[in-house]
């Protein structure tokens, strides 16, 4: 599965129709541009774990600000 597509699906799981998926681009900032809060992050993380088959830890979330950061973490974990 394409990682960005997987992230978009996870964001849809987390936010439903409240999220405009056209805004979900690598350079988008999770909080400022997409309106993420901590529950949104958790909901997206759980969905991503199921889609990609690994588990996040708190360390993964340190320094995450953009969609690109999420893509990098998933890419690293899938290697």
């Amino acid at each position: 599965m394409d990682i960005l597509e997987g992230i978009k699906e996870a964001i849809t799981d987390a936010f439903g129709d409240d999220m405009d998926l056209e805004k979900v681009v690598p350079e988008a900032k999770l909080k400022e541009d997409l309106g993420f809060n901590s529950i949104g992050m958790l909901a997206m993380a759980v969905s991503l774990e199921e889609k990609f088959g690994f588990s996040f830890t708190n360390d993964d979330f340190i320094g995450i600000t953009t969609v690109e950061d999420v893509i990098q973490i998933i890419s690293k974990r899938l290697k």
Partner: protein
Amino acid sequence: MYGKEGYDINMFFYDIAHGIVLLGGHIPPPIKLTIDKKPFRNEIRDEGMLIVGNHVSYKDPWFYSAVFSNRRVFFIASELVMKDPVRNFLCRHAGCIKIDRTIADINAIKTATMTLKHKRVLSIFPEGTRRPGEHDDLSEIKAGVIFLASQTGVPIIPAYSLKPKHWYNRRTIVVGKPFRISDYTDRKFLTVSQMDEIAKALLEKINECKTVFDEVTGGK
């Protein structure tokens, strides 16, 4: 510290505190009431559950443990509560799951999820802080408790209590009727707005408990 079944370190301090609550002028345990007057313990015997109430004192978890005296009650606490070594030691041995409220603490959520999936009782105070002197209706709670319930499928039990006037007075705890996320939606993944909506419903249920509390105690 966290085993396969969630939190399973030696809980000797929990047992001591639980014993003190039961023996320290609270025999039999504090008054137990349900809104629909059904015997509470017969409804949920052998599964995980989330007890969700207002937070007035550091002692709240022990009083909940007295209401549910047939089950060990684990609880979630901010890491700020556990910042000094003594409190950290005592909390760790009292069934406390530490959560960092400044981040999306996925480690704490996973530990809590494991704890519930292994049929344990977990208490959460979703206002996020203690409000010891306030007697207003709860106005806002955090949706993390709804996230946990949706991940585990366990029932949520709303509750309300206030500190008694004197330490030797009995403490009244009103326990509401259990409900489940599946009562509201069949979705596998709840959206953030759905969680917020169910959190509002939970808030109403806790405030219903407060109404019963006021009727029973005169608001004291």
